[in-house]
């Protein structure tokens, strides 16, 4: 029973982190939130008896992807630009 509650809490944390990643305007914080999602996911894989996948998720999702995103943010812009999102979308569609 306590196992089930632990898994439920981890799932809720994952959903909260993903919502935070979408809402957050500062992209660095959003990338950190996606890293937390990967971390919780790897714990969940371990609890669900898939240690191979947990290792992969911990190494690639937490470390490598987060670092590459952080380097990309450092080389581009940090804050999300929302002033003319609709115009950008329209021109992209055309």
């Amino acid at each position, binding site marked *: 029973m306590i196992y089930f509650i632990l898994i439920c809490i981890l799932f809720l944390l994952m959903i909260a982190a993903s919502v935070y990643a979408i809402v957050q305007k500062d992209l660095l914080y959003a990338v950190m939130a996606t890293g937390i999602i990967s971390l919780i996911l790897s714990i969940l894989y371990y609890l669900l008896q898939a*240690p*191979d996948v*947990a*290792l*992969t998720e911990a*190494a*690639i999702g937490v*470390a*490598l992807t987060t*670092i*590459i995103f952080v*380097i*990309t943010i*450092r*080389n*581009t*812009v940090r804050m999300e630009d929302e002033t003319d999102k609709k115009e950008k979308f329209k021109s992209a569609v055309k």
Partner: protein
Amino acid sequence: MKKVLVILLLAILGYYTAFTFFGIGFGQPHFVSGIQPVKDIYLAQTVKSLKVSNAVTSIVVNFRGFDTLGEVTVLFLAVTVLGSLLYKKRHEVGQRSVLFSSSSIVTAGSKLLFPAIILLGVYVFVHGHLSPGGGFQGGVIIATGFLLMLLAYENYSVSHTALSIVESLAGITFAGVGLLGFMHGGTFLQNFLPTGVMNNLFSGGIIPIIYIAVGFKVGAELTGVIYTVLHEKGQSNG
């Protein structure tokens, strides 16, 4: 008219997806009645003839070894495309822009941690057939070790020639071991070495050889990716 067509198409697609999905007998011993499930054969063969204790490794490298070769090829292609997009001539690779240099605690600590991380990565891919982990995981751990050194030291550099030699040799080893199976057993990636005693380091036939090759390949590729991305100059503030 267009919207109606799209909705109609989605409805047809959804109907057949749901139809297929509910046709699968989840939780029942046989997905399709009358046929022995493939997982039983795999689990029995893993212990009986391959003598490998990690069933995931035996499936990934032996029963589905061709798929693993495909995965390695996909990673190789992705790295090649990234390298060709961010290609710089040798003399253009200079000092990369750093906001502030790292303190002596960080440099000394990463110097201490680097051999331990590399050892962990090597352990993970050498023991791929005994414990959880394998070539991909070990390679990524090695790449994170190099990432630590690259972040701590501003002018730490990795030789691209050495990386490409290691990567090519590992790829050739994988394909060569696969081709040797033709000479011995008759199929690609056939296990032709003696399997040995279960739970020994030298057991499992060709599985450790292939995983060591995959570990070197993935480690070299991802180290190259990190090095290339770190030395890319930014548009706005780089």
